[in-house]
């Protein structure tokens, strides 16, 4: 038999035919056994080969000619190949070849020194990168051909750290897509591929001026404050780095807190001019202003949690109020004497009372799950808190992936829960086409004039107006508008309701009597993005998908609060309460989840489609766009440059190497992307579990901000990770370290 290949004739021997038949028989046996594993295929082939040795079979098959052998092989293998084709995803999953190409790319990227991590460069914030250049004594990094080279500081063991601030060092070039980073050492220069991302404008929650003439919302991604006035007048004011929140002490002035600039800045609303700046310690979070406009309270959200009280109009730091966990949402009660603060780490709301000139904590109410959002009554007598569950005993609910969206009404005077309204409505309506679920992921709450409560739902794309007197709910459907996944809302003096949609970069103005809100676009429309920036469009669709509720009422957002973590514990299927993980900084760190069971983020869509019963709305390429969104989330910021102790960190790097931490948490990503059996590291824990539990080696980048630690959150601090929870001394050879080396190691880990 002759076979034509590339213009040449190949002689195909009869022996080839026999081999083909043997393989076909092996396939046929495999198909009959129908086990989706390569080991089964292998054993089938070996069994057939053993049978091949029998004289009977050989006597039957040997007289056959090559053509007959080929035809017989095709006939025998066809059903098995058909079955294998249908079972290909199961086979690929079982043999762990899903995402293998991406894994190879990630491993190659980390192994080819000098290497750089993390691979994501976001244009909206300062970031810290690590370079592993074992033979180099000096390293410079250039993010794009036209960017200026940035000097990296040597930490030891070939590890270098480089700080990049797009405001100081220039925007990434190109702003989107693959960016070639140049790493320059004394041995030459190499190019490494990174992923550049330039987020679009994201208006979120509003602050409202005292007379409701203005409502403003910061866009952290684009460093601007968006101010909306009566008549849908929109001002876009450039502010400092990473605006988080705003507050109006009067109708002419708005104050903005900044996450990356450690400063408050006041702006004149009419002109947009920056008037005054107040530098404050640490990284700043949300804030609240007292009804009288004389006290401004800002949450400090770095390693030292506290509240910073600023006097107005003096604009001076008046007081530090210590907190045991970082403050999240803040609101004043009826006057400046009462201050309420929610915390995420321990899911509480705390009341502070002004005693003399100082705030003192007077009450604490456990919520069980942290506040998703908080709204204050106009008279300050109540606040509304949206949560995914309410557990005043703080014991975790052990229902599988339990989420129950609800609104709590609390009295500001004593923190008593006045009302608990379950918002998520799931019923048999889901089984009928065209039905939609309601009340998923409440994201913004505001009391309107007349006492009506307005609530936005990012999970089910709607706005509710709840009349407390009539117990009536008026619903505005936003599912097909550019205001889907709505967040903030505010009522202006002229009665207009302003909504924000961060995913779409839009504001909506809804006046009484209008059927639909008027949409104000702050970013390019989806149609324009489809032409000019398809990756940004993917992220936009993915962001909406992140907030979208499944039929079970659960969204990604439910646990991964605002794309970080809610610090609450969930039963993820094995009746153990396990804390949720942040979803930032995931690019290039596959496999995912604690047991490394998902090679790609997109594969997690399987959970939504099966366990959570899928989505009501169809979206093309849902899993891919969700992956695009999540992969573009930069990791939490490292410790600020000013707060670093370089000498201690350098000693910490030496201790890191001495304890063999680099074995798994390899430079520069601080992970080798590996999977290890739990017994290899924590034999005493593994012995308590049935079966074998595999552990993904997580990256240690930003680890200082992701407590609690280890696979079930059993270590509340990094010190507990390396000491109390390392009894077998297999999770790093910590016993070889002196006490001072351990301190240095912790300082280094905390700085990542």
């Amino acid at each position, binding site marked *: 038999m002759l076979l034509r290949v590339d213009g040449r004739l190949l002689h195909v021997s009869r022996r080839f035919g026999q081999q083909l038949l043997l393989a076909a028989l092996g396939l046929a046996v495999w198909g009959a056994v129908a086990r989706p594993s390569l*080991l089964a295929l*292998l054993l089938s082939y070996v069994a057939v080969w053993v049978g091949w040795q029998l004289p009977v079979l050989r006597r039957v098959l040997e007289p056959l000619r090559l053509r007959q052998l080929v035809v017989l092989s095709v006939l025998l293998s066809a059903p098995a190949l058909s079955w294998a084709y249908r079972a290909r995803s199961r086979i690929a999953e079982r043999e762990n070849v899903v995402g293998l190409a991406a894994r190879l790319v990630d491993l190659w990227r980390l192994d080819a020194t000098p290497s750089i991590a993390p691979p994501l460069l976001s244009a909206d914030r300062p970031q810290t990168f690590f370079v592993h250049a074992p033979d180099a004594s000096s390293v410079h990094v250039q993010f794009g051909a036209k960017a200026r080279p940035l000097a990296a500081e040597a930490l030891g063991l070939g590890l270098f750290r480089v700080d990049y601030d797009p405001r100081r060092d220039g925007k990434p070039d190109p702003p989107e897509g693959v960016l070639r980073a140049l790493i320059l050492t004394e041995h030459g220069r190499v190019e490494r591929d990174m992923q550049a991302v330039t987020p679009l404008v994201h208006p979120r929650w509003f602050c409202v001026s005292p007379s409701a003439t203005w409502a403003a919302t910061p866009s952290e991604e684009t460093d601007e404050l968006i101010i909306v006035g009566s008549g849908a007048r929109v001002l876009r004011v450039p502010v400092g780095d990473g605006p988080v929140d705003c507050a109006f002490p009067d109708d002419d002035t708005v104050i903005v807190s900044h996450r990356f600039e450690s400063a408050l800045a006041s702006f004149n609303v009419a002109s947009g001019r920056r008037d005054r700046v107040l530098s404050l310690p640490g990284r700043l979070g949300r804030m609240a202003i007292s009804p009288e406009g004389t006290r401004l309270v800002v949450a400090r959200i770095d390693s030292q949690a506290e509240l910073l009280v600023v006097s107005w109009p003096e604009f001076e730091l008046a007081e530090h109020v210590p907190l045991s966990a970082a403050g999240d949402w803040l609101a004043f009660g009826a006057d400046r004497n009462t201050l309420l603060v929610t915390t995420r780490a321990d899911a509480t709301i705390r009341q502070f009372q002004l005693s003399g000139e100082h705030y003192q904590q007077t009450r604490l109410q456990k919520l069980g799950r942290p506040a998703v959002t908080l709204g204050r009554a106009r008279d300050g007598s109540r606040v509304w808190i949206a949560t995914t569950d309410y557990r005043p005993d703080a014991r975790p609910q052990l229902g599988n992936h339990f989420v129950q969206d609800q609104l709590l009404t609390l009295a500001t005077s004593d923190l008593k829960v006045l009302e608990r309204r379950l918002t998520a409505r799931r019923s048999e309506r889901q089984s009928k086409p065209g039905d939609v679920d309601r009340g998923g992921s409440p994201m913004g709450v505001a009391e309107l004039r007349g006492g009506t409560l307005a609530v936005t739902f990012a999970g089910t794309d709607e706005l509710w107006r709840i009349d407390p007197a009539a117990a009536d709910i008026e619903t505005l459907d936003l599912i097909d508008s550019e205001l889907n996944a709505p967040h903030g809302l505010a009522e202006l003096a002229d009665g207009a309701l302003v909504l924000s949609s961060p995913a779409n970069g839009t504001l909506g103005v809804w006046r009484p009597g209008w059927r639909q809100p008027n949409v104000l676009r702050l970013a390019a429309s989806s149609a324009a993005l489809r032409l000019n920036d398809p990756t940004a469009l993917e992220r936009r669709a993915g962001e909406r998908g992140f907030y979208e509720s499944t039929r079970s009422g659960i969204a990604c957002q439910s646990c991964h609060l605002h794309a970080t973590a809610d610090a609450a514990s969930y039963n993820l299927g094995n009746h153990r309460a396990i804390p949720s993980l942040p979803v930032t900084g995931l690019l290039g760190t596959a496999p995912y989840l604690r047991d490394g069971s998902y090679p790609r983020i997109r594969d997690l869509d399987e959970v939504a489609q099966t366990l959570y019963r899928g989505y009501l709305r169809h979206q093309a390429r849902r899993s891919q766009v969700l992956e695009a969104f999540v992969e573009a989330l930069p990791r939490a910021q490292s410790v600020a440059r000013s707060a670093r102790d370089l000498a201690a960190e350098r000693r910490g790097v030496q201790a890191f190497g001495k304890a*063999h931490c680099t074995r798994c948490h390899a430079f520069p990503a601080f992970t080798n992307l590996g999977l290890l*059996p739990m017994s290899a590291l924590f034999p005493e824990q593994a012995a308590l579990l049935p079966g074998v539990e595999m552990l993904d080696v997580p990256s240690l980048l930003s680890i200082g901000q992701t407590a609690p630690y280890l696979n079930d959150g059993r270590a509340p601090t990094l010190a507990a990770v390396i000491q109390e929870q390392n009894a077998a001394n297999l999770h790093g050879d910590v016993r070889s370290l002196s006490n001072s080396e351990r301190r240095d190691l912790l300082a280094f880990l905390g700085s990542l």
Partner: protein
Amino acid sequence: MKPADVSRWSAWLVCGGLGVQTGLLWLLYPGDRDAYTHAFALTRGLGWSGLVALCAGLCATPLGTLLRSRGHAADAWTRELRRLLGIAAAGAALAHAALAFCALPDTRNAVMEAPQLRTGLAGLLILLLLLITSFPRVVRALHVRSWKELHRLAYVAFALAFLHVLHAPYVPIRSALWLAALTLSVGLLRFVARQRGP
């Protein structure tokens, strides 16, 4: 040199090489920056030795074909070398697995759970089958009529060994991929040489 001499010398060469390598691995263990213990370093080293021997064994036939196409009489050498490298690969893989099972207790527990261990086990099973059928006396005793169809599983073992390496947590990925690329390139020579052959 007679074929029997070739066989004897090659056997000594391969066994001696494996022994020397094992000794070196034991002595040079501190140079393995990822290794905690001698056992771990030795397990890794033996695994790599097995992989290199397997790749070299797969390269022997194409190189022999190439030499033959150039008029060299290299059949006896390459055939014997291929057999011995195969035996060495199986021996190293067996030692690698045995050491991992004995000295690294988690391997025993996780062998069917961890994907890298599962593929490694499958590859090892193939190599053991090939090892058993690599000795003429055993082949005769088992009444095996054609071993060649079974020994073509060496290519499957190669693929499984690489999957095993690529999923392993401590893999120098560049070395592994270069080795795979080299083996596949030399493997292609077989067809090129056959095309250009007399």
